[in-house]
């Protein structure tokens, strides 16, 4: 057995910073959208291709940071030669595709989706939907006109679920876009506290066995709130201010800062109304966090609002 002195030497400094491995140039796929030719990388979706042409396709269940589920069917477009309309959010481009983003069939389908949602879900806190309704001439009331009374038109109206101090779940506003399930699952948090339960019109977002949130696997990261497109999931301060008629987003100062809690350094967007922090969000286009936060970043701001005498 040798008794050589154990020593440690640092490797000599590299003369050159090694270049990253070469990335193959993406294969470009040519297609035509609304009569305009475009080339996008293979694997891109129709909505990606539309964005390169600045063509606006309405969406509800789509978000860049989540896997498309194509559940809402607002983004449908017409692909020449296809029997059915294609959801632009998930359909991958194919060479030679000829796509129309507006046509009588597309418009009718979008209008109907908006009418069906508008007649069954409370969309009062869904930003952007009233503009969409107007653009497509959607009249959600027409079912009630035919069926007579409001009670003969089924809806998902139900009491707000308030079972914790951090956020409320108002499933009367839920369009079942699956975004919260994805954010809670493999697309972000991997907590799996919620899933879709039931079927048909009774399908709904549920914790395991429908237990209250404090009894569920929920870790209160609030990433579900961040992706909810209709305000069905809402942080308690915003919910209470809205209830009191004091929610005034137009007066709010919105400031980006860095979360003070740990070394990750997530970007926080702080919403301040009347010198009080009323909401914390995080930008989706942040390359590291993609809009996700943890319970401390999203909800741990109360101490700022307190004075010593509190």
């Amino acid at each position, binding site marked *: 057995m040798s008794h050589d002195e154990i020593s440690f030497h640092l490797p000599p400094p590299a003369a050159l910073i090694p270049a990253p491995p070469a990335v193959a140039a993406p294969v470009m796929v040519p297609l035509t959208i609304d009569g305009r030719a475009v080339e996008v990388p293979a694997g891109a979706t129709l909505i990606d291709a539309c964005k390169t042409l600045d063509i606006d396709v309405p969406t509800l269940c789509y978000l860049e940071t989540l896997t498309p589920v194509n559940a*809402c069917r607002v983004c449908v477009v017409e692909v020449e030669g296809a029997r*059915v309309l294609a959801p632009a959010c998930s359909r991958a481009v194919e060479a030679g595709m000829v796509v129309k983003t507006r046509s009588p069939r597309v418009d009718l389908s979008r209008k109907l989706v908006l009418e*069906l949602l508008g007649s069954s879900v409370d969309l009062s806190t869904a930003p952007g939907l009233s503009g969409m309704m107007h653009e497509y001439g959607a009249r959600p009331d027409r*079912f009630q006109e035919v069926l007579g009374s409001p009670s003969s038109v089924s809806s998902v109206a139900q009491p707000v679920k308030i079972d914790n101090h951090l956020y409320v779940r108002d499933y009367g506003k839920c*369009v079942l876009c699956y975004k919260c399930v994805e954010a809670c699952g493999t697309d972000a948090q991997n907590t799996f506290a919620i899933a879709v339960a039931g079927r048909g019109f009774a399908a709904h977002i549920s914790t395991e066995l429908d237990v209250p949130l404090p009894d569920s696997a929920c870790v209160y990261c609030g990433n579900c709130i961040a992706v909810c497109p209709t305000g069905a999931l809402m942080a308690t301060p915003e919910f209470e201010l809205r209830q009191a008629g004091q929610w005034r987003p137009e007066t709010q100062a919105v400031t980006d800062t860095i979360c003070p809690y740990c070394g990750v350094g997530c970007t926080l967007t702080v919403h301040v109304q009347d010198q009080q922090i009323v909401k914390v969000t995080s930008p989706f286009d942040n390359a590291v966090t993609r809009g996700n936060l943890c319970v401390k970043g999203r909800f741990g701001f109360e101490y700022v609002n307190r004075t010593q005498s509190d």
Partner: protein
Amino acid sequence: MNGADQLCRDLESRFGHAVHRSPCLGQCDRGSAALITRAGSDPERFVLAPVSADEVAKALSAGTVPTVPRVGASANGAGAKIVRRMNVADATSLASYRQHGGYQALAKAIEIGAAAVIAEVSAARLLGRGGAAFPTGRKWDAVAREPARPHYVVCNADESEPGTFKDRVLMEQDPFAVIEAITIGGLATGAERGFIYIRGEYPESERAIAGAIQQARAAGLLGVDVSGTGQAFDIEIRRGGGAYICGEETALFNSIEGKRGEPRSKPPFPAQFGLFGKPTVVNNVETLVNVLDILIDGGDAWSKTGTAGSAGTRLFCLSGHVVTPGLYEIECGQTLRHAIGVAGGIPNGRALQAVLLGGAAGTFVGPDALDMPLSFEGARAANATLGSGVIMVFDETADLMDTLARIAQFFRDESCGQCVPCRVGTVRQAELLQGRDPGSGIRDPGSGIRDPGSAHHSAR
């Protein structure tokens, strides 16, 4: 039509809340039907049809599974091919199946090899019998060529389209044929595992298939070395949980994988991204059973029956107002009038009002369509569909609006809830139909009911 309401009243007065009404048990040839679960440490499930409240009570107390009267596969004539063993061979015996020509097709498949099997199936121009009419040969070829492994074969025996019962009769009365055909599909496309997804309301089918798999394994026709080929192939049974949507192939994959039964977005198609994300052949029971005769006759010879666009024969499920409801094998291209005639015509000299073709998701046609050829191209020309082979006949006394309202209620209940046009649209359709006065038409026929329908057509 067949006294189900009376049966339900009788059962409810006897058993109270233990009775649950089902929209469909897949027994349209012999209603009214009851699916019974005898609770206990080893619960037993069985279907009785046709049945009375007395018989249900007796079955619940008896110590053994009651025998079910064999109906179906009647009056098939000399041209019978798919159904030729029914009521002839002993469906519970591998030896009897072999005596009646069983397992000759597998021997032929082993002799000619995988590529030649696919060539024969392609030459036969066999189209899928589950409803979508996709060329089976192309499906098999695509999977066989996929480099990703493993490959899977899935037999779709979920048969959930109301009015359809053909696959149930096939599984109950010729289960070895189903097993042999899945085995051939596995060997031809390079799969070592097959699944048969059996509708939850079909306990008899499940028993028959399980028995057949067991005997085939014991005889070396399934297992690590199929018939001395050195190739492994085995079949597992998966039972559906009573969801209509799980008859859709990608929802069926999700169900087998233990996930929520929701359809996936296509493309990618099952041949590339199927069960567990692997290349998968998924075929209907009747489609697979046709492969046996294709191999025995040769693809070209087999394709001589039927029409240019629809080779072979088809199993039609005749029910409703016909003298002898049942399963009938009819050569593609025969007329609708012929099919109704084979089932004895309409009873009591009544006039035809309408025929529902292809099941609840199919098309109503009127008496003017009686000369429509029962072929894919014939149905398409008449803006109808043969779907899963349902021919449900309504005579002049039937209340079609009531039938339509029931169908709307069925889809309302069976929507998986994933997409808006179906989840909410089926509710609005059902409301518009149920809110009407008896005998009156649809309220607001112009837009209220048709618009969701058009959105459904555009969505899937």
